[in-house]
């Protein structure tokens, strides 16, 4: 039980870092090229959703 909790914590840290990096990079990209906002947002959401999916799958395994 305790080991699983540590595992779940590690997963959340990993997913948090991943989605945070995507969000940060998207912010930077939008600041550089505001006219491409829509495309960047779409790509950001897809990437975030994919990472989230893996995170949830791992959480269920833990």
């Amino acid at each position, binding site marked *: 039980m305790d080991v699983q909790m540590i595992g779940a914590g590690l997963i959340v840290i990993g997913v948090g870092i991943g989605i945070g990096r995507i969000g940060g990079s998207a912010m930077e990209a939008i600041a550089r090229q505001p006219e491409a906002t*829509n495309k960047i947002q*779409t790509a950001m*959401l*897809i990437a975030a*959703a*994919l990472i*989230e*999916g893996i995170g*949830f799958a791992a959480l*269920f395994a833990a």
Partner: protein
Amino acid sequence: MYRLLRFILVVALLSPVVTSSVFANAEAHHGAPDKELTPEELRDENNAFVKHHTNDSHDFGIVSNEETGTHVGFPLPVILWDGSLHVFMSSAFEHGEKVVESKGNYYKLDTHDGKIYKTDEHGVVMTETTIDKKTKEETVHQLKPLDFSITKNVFVTIFMCILMFFLFKGIAKSYKTGLAPTGAAKFFEPIILFIRDEIAIPNIGEKAHKKYMVYLLTVFFFIWFLNLIGMTPLGINVTGNIAVTFVLAIFTFLITQFTGKKDYWMHIFWMPGVPVPMKIILIPIELIGLVVKPFALMIRLYANMLAGHIVLGALIAAVYFFDAYLAKTAFLGLTFFMNIIELLVAALQAYIFTMLTALYFGSAAAVHEEAH
């Protein structure tokens, strides 16, 4: 300036709806217990509250008070297969207090896990003992009939199907008289166009997108409406049920496989443009990928919606947990904020499901002209 005004107007119009749903949720919880509860009892009670609101059930309960034993709601039909067909209304259980007799068999509703068990006439659950041949270990099973009941989730799903059928039938009809949208079409036309122009065409392609539009639109509105009805204080949680998302993901999987063109299978079994040893290594990886994609779709929607409901339930429980009025007010504000976020998530999850489905369809329908 106009945009800001519009935003404020929308929030102002939405806020009574959202706050009333918060209060109604809280009211449904329990009518202010006067007796002192230990932290463990409180925790158990909160867990039961969250479970009650996220799990499926055999009746459509709206408000219930455990202390006085009053329940407001309506019963739903129970359909059991146990050698023969048993059909009766769930009101016969009287919320788990009574044993129901049907064609010589006796059934009881367990209020803790919401499942129906086979019992004898005194309400003792029948058991069956099986012995493992290898380990000689005895395991005791509690007997359960096959349950095909119209439960709350099934009821809401059927209701939503009927609602969507008439809504979109009406929208389609409104275009017969002229191209300008009227009525509900005014609201839904931009959303339908968004799915076509921003999701289907960029991912699937100008030529092939048309035959997939039917499924994409259906799945988007189905998930979105079910997510939204889950935000009402009725305690509905259809998209947070893994069986529902499993079936949705299976549909996406089957459509992807059965509409896959030559190039799609080529990329799975004989990846072009890489050396032969690499091709052989890639076959199992691609085959695993086939299954992982719908699996991730299923888990994402299920986990997001369930987690949202649990967080909301925990926040509402926290309003009752604290005695200080400052803390109560703070948690009420937080619940309101979470409700708004969940409204966003309801649309976002529908969008992401549709988007990824379109992405998989795109890979199935892609035709590569140039050699890799």
